[in-house]
């Protein structure tokens, strides 16, 4: 049964087929939680032992862990959950993966086919509930369809624009007493699904012509560059063109942040220089980015002077929110390779961008991310900068959602793709810790940290037990401001400081909490103590360390473009606006 040739001659039950097919698919890790409808599969797992099953403590954690694993490795994440509440618990994780186009295969148990539709115990319409938040889903009603459906699911999840695929498997389909010949198809052709690989040469030519004429060009890149393994080609194109580059939250790391041509993240909490350059640009080259509202601000004011080139694997992303002039549909890596070659052929001499860079450097002078470094309180910005120093910039960093996420994006310069792992599209609090579980399991010897807030961390805190069971030495950097900081910031700025229910009262003692799960807890309150504490934490190579860092509760994330405002209408940190005028 452990052989992986196509036709093994094996005769297997549905449960065994599930396990064997995952092995044949090359799956190393399955994140799951058992229950009635998947017990046949769990029994087959017990007997088979071909892959590792990681027992999480909540099905949301299973989906996030599989998602973190997928983001860090580029492989497909896999989870296995039971019917009813198992499936509904996983939905938040599935939707999180869907919004960020992360390849997942989620196996859900279902009640036996004869009782589907009868409101049987732990029955929910999983296919119906997940339909709007998956790339595709299947209900397998016949054991003979099982192997091919699993192959289809992996194919769909990992190709084109990736995304989660759910396979709902009724219990009778995995019945151990019904055995059929097993065959796992290698290649699968779907007549209704053929993602476009190569970009259209005519469109690429038009794009190169626009780039060559540009005097104020800018690259705007997104998570698609990372998902499409386009980082290497991107770096070559950007360096040879000399154009500035800005990235979305999801694209961070695709281009080295320490490179001079990187002018910071754009959008709601982007840098002054990135948003101003976007507003001023004459040729925008968007790559694997989807013109999300957090990036564009008010559409009417988005890049008003620009001709727009858009490279994306998903045709429905083209001209969805913003009309583009030169769409190129194709795999990012392939299109970029073709585009780079043609650009280098057609360009006779380096483009003169001196004036453009003078302008950008002028905006840069504002130093929009500056904060008070003399504060007696730990500033969250300082905490992230210290994390960067202590880890020498070499870290897998997962994040929860809130101010701490934005501070991490602004103050931890990522130089490599797949190192910054956060929920951008759905903004799911609770993502960080289980995602770190997936990353640490993928890279057992790499440093992995999770930056979180005291509100977010409680949403999936149970996964501390998973970390203990599998000895995952994750470092949790809790920026404890005692508030749902991001909510508090909006209330301060847009609701005249009426802090309605954003104060996180009755917090646990996080040090004791970590200890009760068998981990190391530390509390840091003084700026000077932070670096030594982090050093100590990372030196504990086989322990999870939970650092409860008490930070300034009043810190806000700047710059900020309020929802619905134009990209040039930034709120700067207090005191900075005057400097801008001066």
């Amino acid at each position, binding site marked *: 049964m452990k052989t992986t040739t196509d036709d093994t001659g094996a005769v297997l039950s549905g449960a065994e087929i599930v396990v064997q097919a995952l092995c044949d698919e090359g799956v190393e890790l399955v994140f799951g939680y058992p229950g009635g409808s998947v017990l046949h599969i769990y029994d087959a797992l017990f007997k088979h032992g071909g892959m590792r099953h990681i027992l999480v403590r909540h099905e949301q954690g299973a989906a996030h862990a599989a998602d973190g694993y997928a983001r860090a490795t580029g492989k497909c994440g896999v989870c296995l959950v039971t019917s009813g509440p198992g499936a509904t618990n996983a939905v938040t994780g599935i939707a999180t993966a869907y919004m960020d186009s992360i390849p997942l295969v989620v196996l859900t148990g279902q009640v036996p086919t004869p009782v589907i539709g009868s409101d049987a115990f732990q029955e929910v319409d999983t296919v119906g509930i997940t339909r709007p938040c998956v790339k595709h889903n299947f*209900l397998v009603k016949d054991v003979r369809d099982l192997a091919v459906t699993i192959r289809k699911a992996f194919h769909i999840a990992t190709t084109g624009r990736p995304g989660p695929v759910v396979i709902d498997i009724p219990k009778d389909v995995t019945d151990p007493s019904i055995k059929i010949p097993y065959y796992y198809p290698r290649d699968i052709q779907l007549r209704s699904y053929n993602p476009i690989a190569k970009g259209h040469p005519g469109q690429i030519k038009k794009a190169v012509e626009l780039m060559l004429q540009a005097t104020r060009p800018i690259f705007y890149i997104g998570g698609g560059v990372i998902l499409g393994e386009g980082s290497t080609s991107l770096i070559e194109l950007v360096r040879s063109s000399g154009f500035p580059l800005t990235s979305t939250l999801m694209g961070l790391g695709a281009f080295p942040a320490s490179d001079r041509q990187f002018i910071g993240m754009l959008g709601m909490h982007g840098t002054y220089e990135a948003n101003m350059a976007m507003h001023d640009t004459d040729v925008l080259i968007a790559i694997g980015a989807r013109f999300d509202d957090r990036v564009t601000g008010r559409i009417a004011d988005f890049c008003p002077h620009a001709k727009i080139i858009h490279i994306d694997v998903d045709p429905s992303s*083209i*001209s969805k929110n913003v009309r583009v002039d030169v769409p190129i549909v194709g795999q990012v890596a392939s299109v970029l390779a073709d585009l780079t070659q043609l650009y280098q052929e057609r360009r006779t001499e380096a483009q003169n961008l001196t004036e453009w860079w003078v302008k950008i450097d002028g905006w840069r002078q504002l130093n929009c991310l500056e904060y008070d470094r003399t504060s007696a309180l730990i500033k969250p910005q300082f905490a992230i900068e210290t994390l960067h120093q202590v880890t020498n910039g070499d870290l897998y960093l997962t994040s929860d959602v809130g101010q701490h996420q934005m501070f991490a994006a602004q103050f931890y310069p990522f130089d490599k793709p797949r190192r910054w792992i956060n929920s951008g599209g759905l903004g799911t609090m609770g993502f960080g810790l289980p995602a770190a579980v997936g990353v640490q399991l993928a890279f057992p010897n790499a440093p992995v940290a999770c930056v979180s807030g005291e509100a977010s961390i409680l949403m999936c805190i149970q996964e501390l037990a998973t970390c203990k069971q599998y000895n995952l030495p994750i470092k949790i950097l809790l920026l404890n401001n005692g508030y749902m900081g991001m909510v508090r910031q909006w209330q301060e700025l847009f609701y005249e400081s009426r802090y309605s229910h954003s104060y996180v009262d009755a917090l646990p003692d996080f040090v004791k909490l970590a200890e009760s799960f068998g981990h190391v807890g530390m509390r840091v309150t003084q700026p000077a103590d932070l670096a030594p504490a982090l050093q100590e934490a990372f030196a504990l190579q086989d322990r999870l360390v939970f650092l409860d860092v008490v930070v300034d509760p009043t810190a806000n994330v700047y710059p900020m473009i309020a929802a619905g405002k134009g990209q040039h209408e930034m709120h700067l940190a207090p005191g900075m606006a005057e400097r801008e005028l001066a």
Partner: protein
Amino acid sequence: MRHIIAVLLENEAGALSRVAGLFSARGYNIESLTVAPTDDPTLSRMTLVTTGSEEIVEQIKKQLNKLIDTVKLLDLSDGPHIEREMMMVKVRAERPDREELKRLADIFRAKIIDVTDTSYVIELTGASKKLDAFIDAVPEGLLIEVVRSGPTGITRGEKGLTL
């Protein structure tokens, strides 16, 4: 603008709800939607009528194409095509009105397919506008029930929407 879009879908359970779900989730207009299996039992053909700006209709088509179950899609409104809808109308047909209703049916080349002492059921096929016109022409107070299939369509000429 009004668009009539034909889609060949895998004849799988749930394919229809994916299309319906797409329209409700993204807030697109849908005027009518008809679906039935084709001569190839693995395929269903769906015809849907929608209205929206050119940008929205473009998005609708892209989103429909993105569904894994969509095999092929054609906007019939892009070229010469024939559109047909079937309607059955039940009308009150008492003595004084019977002759006029019969005449009306003849003018529209409709058929009377059920007759009682007090009612007719009239069947009519044609472009949706023609069906609208017939309903308008039925004298006040005589309409009992109207049932329409929703439009289906096919391109003119020898090229077909097939695999």
